């Protein structure tokens, strides 16, 4: 064994303790009944639990809506920030990223308070506004990065071949920024599906998300069902990653 591979040992221990073991525990708990016997009941229970199913649907819907809002707001912002003609200073870019430096919980609490003061009724509207505010930087940053590094000769070549500015954007800039868009979608969609704190604060628990149910189950010591729900969420996130991480051209059509 080479010496160099020894350097990996601390990371390996870390991975086993904090990633593999917890994952294994989730699987074990999810497949156990209250007395420690093996069962699929927890999983099948979810598919018959209309309450959980509808929350799940709402979660996915909110996540898709939030991702869409972030994409629609974030792409133009990233485009403007990365364009040297429109934005001459790096400070503006930092200002957009700045909210990421503040703890999400603090931001959410402050947002909720702001909505209260402004007299907004807490509900789906405030939930989406708050979420978009929370996750927008995660959409802007990867797209901004890709656009900033993009070789402008591609755009010039397209214009040279007769493409109008709109066609240049549609046929060259947009497809070439797909890697940024996919990682932006991943970074917004995944945490939105699993969040519970934001919906709790911003809707006064009026809207329950999938994360909320898991939290409630675990809080009320229903470890096995909670673990099963976590497992289901994990599978969904895994599938999203697979789809988005695959060929870029596939992203164009479906996922959003």
């Amino acid at each position, binding site marked *: 064994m080479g010496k160099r591979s020894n350097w990996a040992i601390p990371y390996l221990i870390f991975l086993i303790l904090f990633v593999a073991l917890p994952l294994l525990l989730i699987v074990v708990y999810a497949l156990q009944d209250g007395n420690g016997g093996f069962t699929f009941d927890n999983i099948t229970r979810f598919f018959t639990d209309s309450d959980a199913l509808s929350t799940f649907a709402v979660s996915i819907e909110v996540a898709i809506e939030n991702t869409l809002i972030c994409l629609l707001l974030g792409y133009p912002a990233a485009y403007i920030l990365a364009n040297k003609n429109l934005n001459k200073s790096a400070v503006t870019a930092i200002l957009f990223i700045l909210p990421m430096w503040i703890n999400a919980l603090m931001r959410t609490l402050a947002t909720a308070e702001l909505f209260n003061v402004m007299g907004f009724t807490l509900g789906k509207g405030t939930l989406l506004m708050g979420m978009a505010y929370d996750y927008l930087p995660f959409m802007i940053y990867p797209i901004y990065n890709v656009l900033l590094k993009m*070789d402008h*000769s*591609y755009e*010039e*070549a*397209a*214009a*040279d*071949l*007769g*493409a*109008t*500015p709109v*066609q240049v954007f549609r*046929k*060259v800039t947009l*497809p*070439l920024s*797909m890697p940024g868009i996919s990682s932006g979608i991943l970074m917004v969609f995944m945490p939105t599906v699993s969040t519970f704190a934001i919906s709790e604060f911003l809707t006064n628990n009026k809207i329950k998300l999938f994360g909320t149910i898991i939290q409630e189950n675990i809080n009320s010591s229903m470890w096995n069902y909670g673990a099963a729900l976590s497992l289901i969420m994990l599978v969904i996130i895994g599938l999203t990653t697979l789809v988005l991480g695959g060929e*870029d*051209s596939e992203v164009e059509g479906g996922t959003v």
Partner: protein
Amino acid sequence: MSGKENVIIDIEHLSKSFGDKQVLKDISLYIRKGEFVTLLGPSGCGKTTLLRMIAGFLQPDEGTIMMEWESRGGQREFRDVAGIPPHLRPLNTVFQRYALFPHLDVYDNIAFGLKLKGVPKDEIDARIRKVLKLVSMSDYEDRDVDSLSGGQQQRVAIARAIVNRPKVLLLDEPLAALDLKMRQDMQIELKEMHQKLGITFIYVTHDQSEALTLSDTIVVMNEGKIQQIGTPTDIYNEPVNSFVADFIGESNILNGTMVKDRLVNFIGHDFECVDEGFGENVPVDVVIRPEDVYIGYTLEGSQFTGTVKSCTFKGVHYEMYVDTDSGNELQIQDYDAFEPGKQVQMLIHPDDIQVMRKERIENVIDCEIIDENHVKMLGEVFECAPITSGSTGPARAHISFAKVDLMDHEDDGDTSGEVWFILYKGDHYHLTVKTVSGEYVYVDTDDIWDKGDLVGIKILPEDITVEMNDGQEK
């Protein structure tokens, strides 16, 4: 003008600055239909800027670009293209780093322009097949562009441009990224393509041999200005100034004196030549190509002698450096080798001597008189020879080339600058130094400097002669 027949692009008085830096100064040039024109010059000479302006990626500060234009009715007219965006101009570009779209395969890259124009699918197929055959890339339609070699990407880039049948094809150093062998092969292919297609090529390169091989017309550029326009033969045989002579091919550039018509003196001897009309006893630059010096241990009609200093085999010929009896160094090429240390005899035929008027015989620098002993020039105050007239204001300072001293350390001089251009004159170097104030100072020196060296510039007071501007407004 009778010379302006068949013109497809006419450029007049074009200037462009980026910030404080003027990259193009008053460029005028016309290009004929079907011509292979090369813009040739060292990096930073403005050739790419000029090409990008023709393509429409940059707008000129001053001057006009006129282009032949086919209106909707099929009528031809000449049109000022100012403000017309690149996608509407009747030309296509082959970019320096190819700029092939990485998200499209070879077929879709080439079809890009045709699809935008709404050309029917089967015609696109046919034209792509034809153009791929032309660049010898048949059967590569479905390949990913990333999987192609540099030379293959180059071919696809050319195919993508010419498939649109542009009136003019712009090529921005298209071969710069290829290795030598590939470059030579592509040169031949480009030349053939140009003949077959009959479209106008505007080609940018810094490689003089490439320019000589390919072009019908070469435009030599330096410092944002056109130095010479001519056929490769004209430019090689009759360079108009020492920059062109030095940049195109190998050459001996020597100081000389035009004694009278058809007689020039250099390296300590009088030579018959074919030039007339310079006047008598006028200082000139003389260019001798290394292959034009005849050399032998004994040579009939020999004009001067020398000692061989070095001899290197260059494949077909030998390259020798010979110290002449007058102490000048000459570069000579011959099919025979001559042993270092041996005495040789040499002669030069009258029509192989190219005589050029000197651009300048001394430094003339705009200055401002401060008092009778001081002038302000090159952004600094210099002590100078006493000025008798007693007046102040704008004037001109004359300083001979040999009286400008260069120092190793920038701080040691009165001002400082960067060695910009070096010319070996057989027994000394003629340097162009760009000062921190952005002006040029010309220096004769025996010391060896490198291009890009930062130097201090020192001029003794008695060597600065100030001349009044004679009340002229300037």
